[in-house]
């Protein structure tokens, strides 16, 4: 069987979970597509998932109320073994990329990590992924009887429901005790469109010169365009903006319809987090700035003049 781990939020499968379903369908390997849900009070999620897959395995346990790498790895491994899975699909979120590695070791299986495409090539699995800070695309192949695959969020379109409902089963698990204790969580909240979901992202760099200019110019333009706000690491390190807004290798990966980089030089570590955006727009006073080599449209000029003009022109 193809086993996929379906993440959920507020009683619903996440978009990434439905993307995994699509990846599983496109793969077309034999056996039922089986979704595993881990957590507590899972009836609504399980009912919803049953519209998409042939089997839903439900592990409804208090220990699974929140994510833990050791428990998640143990649970997925047990189900993969009992169900004789040949493919395990996990969403390549921060947590997914963490516990998928543990699952691969437990199952003595290869890991195709953070793939944008996975295909069956005469029985072997080929995964396409980015490498070298997303400057290179590489294909790797696993010929093992069982392969663990983590799939990059956003790489597949979310699946559509099927006409027949899948079966639901409760599963029993033997779980270890975790040795890491969480002592508090800080959940990121924003009143704007979340960066990773926004159609337009406006990112400010050190070229803005001060946190005040960042607020007035970047937020001003973002307000007019209904855009999410991003920042470069230089800006975050300087304490102008919170880390949650950072785009890049050590920040978030985004691929909106339009990415507007203002006073951003375009370092590779930054590009690796936004280079897959549909349209890239740059405003920079330096015509040689690397960001222009990656831009569809650009204004070569002083942002302190250009952005107020853009704000005026987009005023509702």
């Amino acid at each position: 069987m193809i086993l996929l781990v379906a993440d959920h939020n507020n009683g619903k499968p996440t978009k990434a979970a439905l993307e995994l379903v699509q990846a599983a369908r496109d793969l077309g390997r034999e056996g039922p597509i089986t979704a595993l849900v881990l957590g507590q009070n899972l009836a609504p999620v399980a009912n919803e998932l049953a519209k998409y897959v042939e089997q839903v395995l439900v592990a409804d346990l208090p220990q699974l109320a929140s994510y833990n790498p050791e428990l998640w790895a143990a649970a997925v491994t047990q189900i993969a073994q009992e169900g004789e899975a040949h493919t395990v699909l996990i969403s390549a979120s921060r947590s997914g990329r963490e516990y998928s590695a543990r699952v691969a070791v437990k199952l003595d299986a290869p890991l195709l990590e953070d793939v944008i495409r996975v295909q069956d090539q005469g029985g072997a699995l080929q995964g396409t992924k980015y490498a070298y800070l997303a400057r290179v695309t590489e294909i790797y192949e696993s010929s093992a009887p069982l392969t663990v695959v983590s799939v990059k969020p956003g790489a597949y379109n979310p699946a559509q429901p099927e006409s027949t409902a899948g079966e639901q089963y409760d599963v029993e698990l033997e779980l270890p005790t975790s040795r890491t204790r969480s002592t508090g969580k800080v959940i990121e909240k924003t009143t704007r469109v979340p960066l990773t979901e926004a159609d337009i992202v406006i990112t400010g760099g050190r070229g803005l010169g001060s946190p005040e200019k960042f607020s007035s110019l970047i937020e001003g333009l973002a307000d007019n365009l209904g855009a999410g706000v991003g920042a470069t690491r230089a800006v975050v390190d300087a304490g102008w903006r919170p880390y949650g807004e950072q785009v890049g290798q050590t920040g978030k990966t985004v691929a909106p319809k339009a990415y507007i980089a203002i006073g951003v030089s375009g370092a590779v570590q930054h590009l690796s987090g936004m280079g897959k955006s549909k349209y890239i727009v740059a405003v920079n006073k330096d015509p040689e700035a690397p960001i222009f080599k990656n831009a569809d449209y650009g204004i070569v000029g002083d942002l302190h003049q250009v952005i107020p003009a853009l704000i005026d022109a987009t005023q509702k």
Partner: protein
Amino acid sequence: MNILCVIRQVPDGEAKLRINNSKVDLDGVTVIMDGMDEYGVEQALRLREAGASVEQIIVLAVGPARNEDAIRTALAMGADRAIHVETGEYLDPISLSKIVAQVAQEENASLIFSGGQQSDWDSQALGAATAERLSWPQVTWTNALELSGETLKGKHDIDEGAETFEVELPAVITTQQGLNDPRYPTLPNIMKAKKKELRKDTLEKYGVQARLRHVSSTIQVRERAGKLIDGKDPQAAAAQLLELLRNEAKVIS
């Protein structure tokens, strides 16, 4: 206790990459210690400087001969000695974790540092895979860390934000930005590093084989329109850009 710092040598971010025989060819390319791993080496040194009873800080690198440069950098930062498993073979992180786990056991390490994401493979798997092989806990994406007794306390990033944690040694920690500012090796320390022990091992010793076969590598060439507008007249430039976004790209209405 002993701390093991796993480092990788990767092309400098600005280096131009080329493909040869459908593989990335690093001959003649400037290579450096992966920035993410540097945080781990620095943090090991800081734990010692803060008074933890750190006996040895051992650096481990797996890769071709040229990795010696990155190893010497780590030694010059202050690590005590190094192990270099010399191989030209490509190893995926799950296979690599087998070597790291064996070295950790042989060297009696109780803390392992490794970078949050490798900038050659763009992988985040090594830390967690190593922890699993050793049956240790791991904490990934750590940006604050201190040790009191046998307990590590710190902060790290999770899917929805950040989390503070406590974990008992032994453990694997993957490092990232915010944890510290890695020091630059000074000239005297670079000289001293030349005399520090650098043991060479072969891949055979660890009985490890790659579990994935490399099929191909392609440089990303994404055609971008590259239409540049002169911003000397800001109003005209703004109007022209909005016109392109509305009518050509159709991303705003």
